[in-house]
């Protein structure tokens, strides 16, 4: 196997730039003669998806590397962009990062590579998230439409109904505490890793923090954070936190993970990848009965669906063969076979319509949820109702500021109004300093 790898590295590269070295791939190359396209990604069960792609393609092979999850990968990618070399041909990005990298000319506009042909394969919201102005900078892969995961056993024990509005949700939190439950209803994280979650909650109430169009005016940026809607949502959660009706634990830490599964939180306000995340955690309590319900609403008569996370494949400006790289970006998750692996082994939520709208996906029963068809019950409606969100090119700075100010608020140091104003001021002055004109 080793000799096969080293021999094809010299002949299989194709392009005139330094070819991808097959020995650097995590996966095994099936067709040694085909040119290689390097891919950075951290999807669960991705190796099986890559193998599926490689064994069904003679003309191109994927060379996969896991360069870290989220920020870890972006740090490496950002450095290769700055250095001018070392980036992969295709990179996995969460949708909130696309504008930042597109503005740095790190990504290739896929309009020249058949983006229009696949637009109909995705929902409007998903397509909006990978587009900036007229440009299309990535191919959507998985999404994070939001819902409410809850412990049926705990709710039954304390006689609590599943809330459909945020008012009912707050009442349920009070009810749970009054009943003397040892845990709380849910967690409101204020750390950096929880910032995207808080942003989604804010967005549901109508907060559109950024107005940005890369195609039309790459240096114009509208920042609209200090709004009544923002204050409303922050006040809502701040009240729950200060009355100790919900926890204020840092998200994605061992502590919060343990509390997620040991019954300390009766509910998990989650994205569609949440069920997969839950199942991957160790030490769940005996007899836990997880169920899923739609996300509570501010106004039940006018429901608004939001998205948390989700990712896409982008072709980098350093790609050796952009056309081939675009083929790979479009093709990896462009088959039912690949998606069945992604859904069943990786618990991904597909954005590719042929599988998203299939009966297979709609009727899929999840043993973890006691056989509930969570897609048709919750997430399909959430995904189709999602209209897209405008991320800014200063997204990381914004997340840091939002996390710092909301954390300060949750500690009782500042009011929700002051938090909203501080975030607005900080982002305003940073954006100005970076040469943006505030709209």
């Amino acid at each position, binding site marked *: 196997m080793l000799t096969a790898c080293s021999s094809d590295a010299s002949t299989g590269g194709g392009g005139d730039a330094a070819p991808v070295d097959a020995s650097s791939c995590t996966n095994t190359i099936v067709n040694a003669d085909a040119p290689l396209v390097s891919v950075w990604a951290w999807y669960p069960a991705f190796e099986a998806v890559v193998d599926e792609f490689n064994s069904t393609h003679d003309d191109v092979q994927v060379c996969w590397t896991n360069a870290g999850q989220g920020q870890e990968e972006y*740090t490496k990618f950002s450095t290769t962009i700055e250095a001018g070399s070392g980036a992969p041909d295709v990179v996995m990005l969460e949708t909130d990062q696309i504008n930042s990298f597109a503005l*740095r000319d790190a990504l290739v506009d896929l309009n020249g590579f058949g983006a229009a042909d696949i637009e109909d394969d995705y929902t409007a919201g998903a397509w909006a998230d990978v587009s900036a102005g007229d440009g299309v900078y990535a191919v959507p892969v998985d999404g994070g439409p939001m819902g409410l995961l809850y412990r049926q056993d705990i709710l039954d024990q304390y006689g609590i109904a599943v809330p459909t509005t945020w008012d009912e949700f707050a009442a349920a939190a009070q009810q749970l505490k009054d009943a003397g439950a040892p845990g709380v209803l849910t967690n409101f994280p204020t750390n950096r890793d929880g910032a995207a979650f808080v942003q989604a909650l804010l967005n549901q109430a109508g907060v559109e923090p950024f107005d940005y169009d890369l195609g039309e005016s790459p240096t114009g940026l509208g920042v609209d954070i200090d709004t009544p809607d923002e204050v409303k949502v922050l006040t809502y959660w701040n009240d729950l936190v200060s009355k100790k009706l919900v926890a204020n634990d840092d998200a994605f830490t*061992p502590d919060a993970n343990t509390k997620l599964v040991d019954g300390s939180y009766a509910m998990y306000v989650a994205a569609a990848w949440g069920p997969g995340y839950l199942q991957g955690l160790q030490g769940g309590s005996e007899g836990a009965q997880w169920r899923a319900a739609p996300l509570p609403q501010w106004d039940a008569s006018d429901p608004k669906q939001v998205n948390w996370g989700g990712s896409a494949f982008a072709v980098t400006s350093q790609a050796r063969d952009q056309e081939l790289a675009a083929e790979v970006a479009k093709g990896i998750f462009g088959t039912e076979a690949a998606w069945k692996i992604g859904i069943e082994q990786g618990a991904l939520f597909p954005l590719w319509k042929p599988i998203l709208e299939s009966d297979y996906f709609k009727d899929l029963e999840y043993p973890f949820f006691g056989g509930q068809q969570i897609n048709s019950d919750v997430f399909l409606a959430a995904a189709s109702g999602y209209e897209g969100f405008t991320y800014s*090119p200063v997204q990381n700075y914004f997340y840091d500021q939002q*996390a*710092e100010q909301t954390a300060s608020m949750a500690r009782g140091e500042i009011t929700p109004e002051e938090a909203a104003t501080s975030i607005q001021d900080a982002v305003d002055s940073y954006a100005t300093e970076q040469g943006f004109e505030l709209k």
Partner: protein
Amino acid sequence: MTSADTTLAAPPAPPRGAPRGAPRRVSAHARRQRWGWFFVAPFSAVFVLMLVVPLAYAFWLSLQTKTIAFGSTFTGLDNYVKAFTDPAFLEGVWLVTRFSLVLIPLQMLVSLVAALVLDALTSRFAAFARLMMFIPYAIPVVIGALMWGFLYSPQFGPGAQVFGLFGLDSPSFLAPDSIFGSLVNVVTWQWAGYYMIILFSALRGIDPTLYEAAKLDGAGAFQTAIRIKVPLISSSLVVILVFALIGTLQFFTEPQILRAVASGAISASYTPNIYAYSLAFSYSQFNYASAISFALGVVVFLFSYLFLFLTRKRNGVF
């Protein structure tokens, strides 16, 4: 080299008896110098390529400004002016300064007491204790910080169990008002053993006859320690002080690791190094990050120089 040159230049006219002596010595000297360069070359190459060139490049970067929207322009020292008026940077510098003021005396006291005690003991237990105290230093800093992250955890940490016995909530070691002390504890745990070894070996180097003399003069063990041992190892104390000072001003790893579990307490600009890291890799401001790094370098240099100046009578090393 300079002394060799002066001796060569010294004889004004070669004595008659040895007309060819001087030229031969020059060529031998030149040959030796060539070999010297040859032996130094591998180090110099690595030094220049891995240290001087990157530093020069980073300095060059720091003289330019690249905004997300406008690309790169040469702006001279603007970034430095900005750095030294940037509240995030200045607060970071103030934090590491306070940190040094608390941590360094504590660390030195712990390591000095430990070294003196171990030096006075001669049992087998002493060797074992020495090893045990040194072990934290052998643990990689990242692993050590992760480990402490778990120990501080309100959910898994021993605090939860101990306080749970009395039905109390564990104190939160990772909260904003307690993170400072928690970090001091981690760093002391990690480094005190290492400094103890430095002091201990210095103590072992003291001539034992001095102890006999002290004993004859009627000094007890405590007096010997304070009046004989400590003054004699003062140059080693200065060395560890400078190590600790430079290390603390460049504080990065422990807070960066604990940030993942205490992000409310440790911001993106908690220490100057974390700030430089966030700027470069999270906000893509490589130019300003370079300027912050150099600005920090200036601060470290100033502190170290000031300190060495103040202790110039005691330090025999620098």
